[in-house]
Structures are given as structure tokens and as C-alpha cells.
């Protein structure tokens, strides 16, 4: 438990992805089974424990400390679990195995829970108490995705991350066979029905690069601005996975219900109303939900546009060339108006395709995809067989309003910039960007911020609104969370317009007009 608590503490304060990966890898390498497996499950959200309520915890404290002193403490600390971890009396000499804590939270009945939790807290030091209470309240919040955990696992041994993703959904905590495999043992048998299969990814391309390839070797499809998913029906077990293998079935019961086939297909998840494809923002409202309301199902119906077959009626299609997979796909009747097949585009030359790309039939198209007809379906991002040729980004000229200091490699540099557009005679913040510039430009931006600071709020400075930043972005959604009512996707600074006066920056209404 000491090592687990230390890991959680480090992860909570570490921003950089690589540093997080290293911390996790070192922990997993130096911790014995089954504790490391329980820790992994806790971090990836796969650990199902009895959730301890704030009420129970407050009750424990009421027996131990003056109510006013508790209230003053909680007010200062701001987090219930942390307040209790700090207030609890005990020296924490024991290094209690994490598996003991997990067993306690799995097996203790409701009546015995308060006493069992108190007895556990008595054995722990402050940092372990916090780790235990976070485990008990099911609230880790250390900024580590399941995908990152699998990358850390892949860094420990020979199986690569695609291999691990392929069997991940058949594994259960504390994952002893998985660790055994990573450390040189045998690959665990595929235990689950409807497993996730590693997705084939594309690499970006432009017209110049395409000149080196023969258009006849490729087929093209629209690139839809939805979410890449893998839909599986394996002997009646139906799953919808994101492209990183997260199970998103719970948020899309309408799509799950429509998966009346036997196989695994690759496609784009979209919100569609009849023939109309809704903008990405509509789809976003259906994401990250464990359940979805009936009203939402009706107002934001989801569907699937299929572009490949990985497994079909018991046959692994992946070794076949794309042309053969496509021929089978085109003959399929999915029997649902929620599922259709992504059509191929007719073109003879790259210039033909460029013309199509420049004038797509729907605003929810973000470019074209190119797939080599003879390519097998290979997990990962092989260079060559699949290309994405995205439409040019949208661009606005905005004014820098605030700057925040960065972390890690950018420590000491003002590197995160909030920018705004004109609304009447006011500049309204519309977004934040922290990349797109070179190291040299970062130094210049940092100097600008320091020389033009008007106010400081901790790590943030407001600056004289005079520097124009050309901001490129991939899409735009309406957003109630932002003051401007708009949220850019993937904004980055494409140019610094030292030459342009702030008064000539773009208007908020210009941005609003770019909404799909």
C-alpha cells in the first residue's frame, strides 16, 4: 500500500505523459502480484468495489473529532477523503498489502463496513490513508487513461500495445496471467467473446506526396467527422469499442441493438437524422455517458457507417486484400436504417480527388481517406497502405489575452495562450492553444508575455491585447461551457502575426459563421 500510495501521489502531480508512464511502469515492475494487478485495475477503472459513501466517512469522523474543528479543517482542505486522511490519528507503521484493502472493500457487509474501514485506517500512514479512501470512494482522478496503462504494460516486455489491447477485454483483475505473459510466459487464451481487435490507422498525406503514387492502386472514401469505432457481434455478445479499445457500448444502446450480424466491423459512429449527418458536437453529447436517456436517444440518434470487415461469419477477413473485403462488405444487407456502407468515390486522377475534397457534399466531411486495394488489415499505423487527406484547417486571426506557464519541458515558459475575437469593442475569449509554434517562437512569445503583462493570477498573466495569433483548428462546436458559445477542436497557433494590428483581428461573428 505504501508503494501504491506513493504512485498515486506522484501521478496526481505529474502532468507529462512520459513521466506518468515511467512512474507506472516502475511501480508495476517492482510490485508483486496480486497487488500490482489490483492497482492497475483501480487506475483503469476496472475495479468494482463497494462504494463507501461520504455519509459513512463523516460518521466515522463525528465519533473522533470536534465538529467545529472538523468543519474548519474540511473548509481548508476542500476534499473529504483528504481531510480525513490528514486528521486520522495513527502512525501507519504497517505496509498493508493493497490486496487486503481490496478484499475488505469487496467482502465486508454493510453493517461491518464502518468498523472495518476504521480498523484499516488505524494501520495506515497519512498518504496510504488517502489512497485507501480514494479507492473506497471510487475516485482516483490521477489523469491516467486505460490506454496509457496498456502502453506502460507494453513497455515492460515483448507484447506490443496492440497485442495487449486484443486480449484486454477478456482479462479480469488482478491480471496474473497478463503479467506472466509480459514477463516472458505464455500468452493468455482469448477468454472473452466479442474481443476488441487492434485498429488499422492511416497517416497524413498531401497532394505533393500523392504524386509519387498511382491513383489506380487506391480507392477513396469520405472521411467523416464522427468517431472511429469497432462494432462486434460474436455469438450474440455485442460490443462497441472506441479505436483505443474502450468499451463504449453503454452510451449507444441504439447502435448495439442494430448489430444484427455475426462479425466485427470497422466504421464511423455518427449522429444521423434520416439522411442528414449531424455535426460532431451532437455526437459529443452522447459520449462519455454510462447510460443514456430516452429523450437523448430520440433527439440524437446514433448510427454506423461501415467501411471495413475484420471478421465476417466466423472468418478472419484481415489477411485478405482490401478489395476482397470491400467486395464482401458491399454485398451485405445490414437490415437496419442505422447502418450503411461508406460509399467509394469515383476519380481517375489525384486532381479529380482534390476537386472532390475541395467541395464535399456535407459539412461533416473532414477530408478523404485513401486505401490501397491490395492492403491487408493490419493493426497499428503502418506507413503507406492507408492515407488520410484532410481538408485544410479553418483559420481565424485572434488576439492573445492570457498566458499560462507550462510544465515539464516548458517549465518557466509562458506557453498556454488564451485568445479572443472582437465582439463589438470587446475581445471575447474563444479558445486556448499550447502548440503549433517552434521552440524559437516559444521564446519570443514568452518574452512578449513578460514585457506586456497587465495582471498576474498565480501562474496566469493577462497581457496587453495587441498580439495577433493566427489560430488553425479542425472543427467548431456550439458550447454552453464557453463564454463565446463556441468551442474549437484541436486549436493550434499556425502563425504569429507580429505585423498585424489587434484591431484587424477577426470578429466573433466570423467564427460563428464557420459552424457546420
Amino acid at each position, binding site marked *: 500500500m505504501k508503494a501504491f500510495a506513493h504512485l498515486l501521489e506522484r501521478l496526481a*502531480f505529474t502532468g507529462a505523459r512520459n513521466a506518468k508512464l515511467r*512512474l507506472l511502469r516502475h511501480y508495476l515492475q517492482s510490485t508483486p502480484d496480486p497487488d500490482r494487478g489490483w492497482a492497475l485495475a483501480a487506475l483503469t477503472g476496472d475495479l468494482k468495489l463497494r462504494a463507501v459513501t461520504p455519509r459513512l466517512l463523516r460518521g466515522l469522523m463525528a465519533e473522533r473529532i*470536534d465538529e467545529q*474543528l472538523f468543519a474548519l479543517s474540511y473548509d481548508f482542505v476542500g476534499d473529504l477523503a483528504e481531510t480525513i486522511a*490528514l486528521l486520522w490519528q495513527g502512525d501507519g507503521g504497517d505496509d498493508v498489502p493493497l490486496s487486503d484493502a481490496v478484499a475488505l472493500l469487496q467482502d465486508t457487509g454493510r453493517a461491518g463496513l464502518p468498523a472495518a474501514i476504521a480498523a484499516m485506517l488505524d494501520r495506515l500512514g497519512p498518504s496510504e490513508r488517502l489512497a485507501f479512501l480514494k479507492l473506497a470512494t471510487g475516485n482516483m482522478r490521477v489523469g491516467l487513461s486505460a490506454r496509457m496503462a496498456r502502453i506502460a504494460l507494453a513497455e515492460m516486455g515483448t507484447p506490443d500495445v496492440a497485442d495487449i489491447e486484443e486480449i484486454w477485454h477478456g482479462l479480469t483483475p488482478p491480471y496474473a496471467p497478463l503479467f506472466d505473459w509480459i514477463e516472458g510466459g505464455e500468452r493468455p487464451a482469448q477468454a472473452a467473446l466479442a474481443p476488441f481487435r487492434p485498429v488499422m490507422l492511416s497517416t497524413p498525406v498531401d497532394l505533393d506526396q500523392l504524386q509519387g503514387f498511382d491513383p489506380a492502386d487506391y480507392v477513396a472514401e469520405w472521411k467523416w467527422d464522427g468517431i472511429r469505432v469497432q462494432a462486434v457481434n460474436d455469438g450474440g455478445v455485442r460490443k462497441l469499442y472506441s479505436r483505443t479499445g474502450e468499451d463504449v457500448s453503454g452510451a449507444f444502446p441504439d447502435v448495439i441493438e442494430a448489430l444484427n450480424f455475426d462479425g466485427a466491423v470497422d466504421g464511423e459512429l455518427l449522429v444521423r437524422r434520416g439522411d442528414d449527418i449531424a455535426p460532431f458536437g451532437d455526437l459529443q453529447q452522447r459520449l462519455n455517458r454510462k447510460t443514456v436517456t430516452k429523450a437523448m436517444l430520440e433527439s440524437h440518434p446514433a448510427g454506423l457507417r461501415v467501411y471495413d470487415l475484420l471478421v465476417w461469419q466466423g472468418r478472419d477477413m484481415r489477411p485478405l486484400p482490401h478489395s476482397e473485403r470491400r467486395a464482401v462488405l458491399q454485398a451485405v444487407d445490414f437490415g437496419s436504417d442505422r447502418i450503411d456502407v461508406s460509399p467509394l468515390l469515383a476519380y481517375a486522377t489525384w486532381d479529380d480527388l482534390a476537386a472532390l475534397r475541395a467541395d464535399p457534399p456535407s459539412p461533416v466531411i473532414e477530408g478523404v481517406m485513401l486505401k490501397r486495394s491490395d492492403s491487408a488489415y493490419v493493426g497499428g499505423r503502418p506507413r503507406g497502405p492507408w492515407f488520410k487527406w484532410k481538408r485544410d484547417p479553418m483559420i481565424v486571426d485572434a488576439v492573445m489575452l492570457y498566458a499560462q506557464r507550462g510544465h515539464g519541458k516548458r*517549465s518557466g515558459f509562458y506557453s498556454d495562450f488564451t485568445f479572443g475575437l472582437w465582439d463589438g469593442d470587446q475581445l471575447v475569449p474563444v479558445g486556448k492553444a499550447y502548440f503549433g509554434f517552434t521552440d524559437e517562437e516559444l521564446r519570443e512569445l514568452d518574452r512578449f508575455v513578460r514585457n506586456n503583462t497587465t495582471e498576474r493570477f498565480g501562474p496566469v498573466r493577462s497581457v496587453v491585447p495587441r498580439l495577433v495569433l493566427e489560430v488553425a483548428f479542425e472543427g467548431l462546436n456550439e458550447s454552453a461551457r464557453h463564454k463565446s458559445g463556441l468551442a474549437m477542436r484541436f486549436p493550434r497557433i499556425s502563425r504569429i502575426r507580429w505585423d498585424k494590428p489587434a484591431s484587424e483581428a477577426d470578429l466573433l461573428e466570423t467564427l460563428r459563421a464557420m459552424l457546420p
Partner: protein
Amino acid sequence: MRADQILHPTEAGLYCPPGDFFIDPVRPVPRALITHGHGDHARSGHGSVLATRQTLEIMAIRYGEDFTRTRQVAEGQIRVGDVTVSFHPAGHILGSAQIRVRPDKGPTIVVSGDYCRAPNPVCAPYEPVPCDVFVTEATFGLPVFRHPDPLSEMARLTASMAEFPERPHLIGAYALGKAQRVISLARQAGIDGPIAIHGALQRLCDYHVEQGIELGELIPATAADVPAQLVIAPPSAFASPWVQRFRDPVIGFASGWMSVRARARQRGVELPLIVSDHVDWPQVTRTVRELAPSELWITHGNEDGLMRWCELEGIPARPLRLVGYEDESE
């Protein structure tokens, strides 16, 4: 004479009418008694200053030799006006003292200044001084503050240095006291190589060495390439371009506030180290119990928590609500 006739709060600080002096005044006064050299307690421009030899020397380093018109080293029992004062170690930083004020007739008052009871290799340990009225700080006056053994915090630092050997570790520590304590603790924790220090720490580190405190090999962190994995700097340096010379640093901060995560997050640190030069909750409550004063006065900090504890313990207490002292300089 009643206690509040001997010492009472004014806008300039605690004033003693029978001795006609202020303790740690926040603005220039004719006569000042100063507990320790931190900037919010020791200011320049007074007519005369009475303090420990080390506090006077530290003030001269920070403000120049003309920080006061006249100065007097505190030794033994000193008559000031109609009271007798004496200085006693407070365990906070080098030269820090509690000031005992004894009228010829009436209650004895001890003003602790900032104090700490954890072992600290860079200063003399706190000494309990019997008194009728004890004037305490309450910087960490809430039961959530129980500072761990500082060597266990140093173990977290060395673990991080081993885990990220290619990354320089920049630890924020206030220039007077905390910086030298962190260096000294790092030596105890087995960090033998050169430790780099920011320019703002140089003279105060030199002074500690002159006073016989071992800090080991210190090198200036001013070159473009600093050949040390551990770098100590005042926290303000992390907002300055100075920090840009370090490649992918781990930024830490040594402070008692680091036990609360929200505080550590506000600071934007990756490695919070709980190292405090102030009494924590167990220490302050233990001290009050040991001294058993007939009255407790609380100068600054989280006085509400300590006031509530006194109420529960039946100890008469009142907050002085002095202004001008910064909780943050820890």
C-alpha cells in the same frame, strides 16, 4: 500591571508601553525588538534594533549595514525602560528567538515569534520558557497539519532523482532558513555531490557556513549548463526566465503547506515536499499544554482552529489579529 498594559497590538505591531518598544514592527519605529530575520518580522529603518547577534548580522546582509541607526546584541537579561527582556532560542531559523518580557510587578509574557520543535540542523532547538502569557503563532493551527519526519520527505526526493536521473530537480525553498535546512537535510539523506543554488541564496548560504553549519559543496546555478541534479532556488525564481536553462525539470517546493494537495496544485509543483519551520498542530498544542500559561495570545495564521481547541481545553485565549505577517513565507 495587567498583561495588556505590558503588551498590546497596534497597527505597527506589538507595543510595550512600559519599555517603549515594539516587537517585530511592520513599519519603522524608534525602538524595535526583533525575533528573527524573515522579511515580514525584520524590517529596515528602525531607530534602534535589539536582536540576537545572528539576527542582526542577517539583517545587515539583507538590508545593508545601515538597516538601523543603532543596534544591540541580545545577551542575558536586558533592562529596557521599566521591563526586563531576554531572548531564548525558537528553533525556527538561524538566530531566531522568543522574547520574554518581565515587568517588575505583573505577568511574564513570552512572545514566541515563529517557532518550531522539530529537529533542525541549522539552528538551536526551541527552549520552553515558563510564562504567564504565551504569545504563539498559528500558521498551521488546524489539526490537519501534522508534518512528517523531514528525512522521509527527503527519501521522496532521492527516490524521484533516481527515477528521473536525466531530469534536474529544482526545489523551491525560501532563501533564509528553509533553503539551508533543505540542503542540510539533503546531505543527511545521502546526497553527496554538488548542490546548485540560485544566486539569491549565495550570501545567506555563505553566512550559514561561516556560522559553522555544514552545507557541503555548493555551486552557483547561474551557468547555461548547471552540472548538478539538485538545484535549490527561491520559489519566485520559477516564474522567471532563469528556470528556462533547465531541460525538463522536476519542480518541487519545500513547505509545510505541501501537505494539502490543493495548495501544492496552486503552486504547480510536481514534487511537493512537506518541510516546515513552524510548529504543526501536535507541536503547538503540546507546547501550550507544557507551558500551561494562564492566557494564550494568538498572533497570526489559522487562529480559528487553535481558538476552538483552547475553548475545548478550557484555556483562556484571544486572537491579536496582527496584520502584515505572511503565512505564505513558509
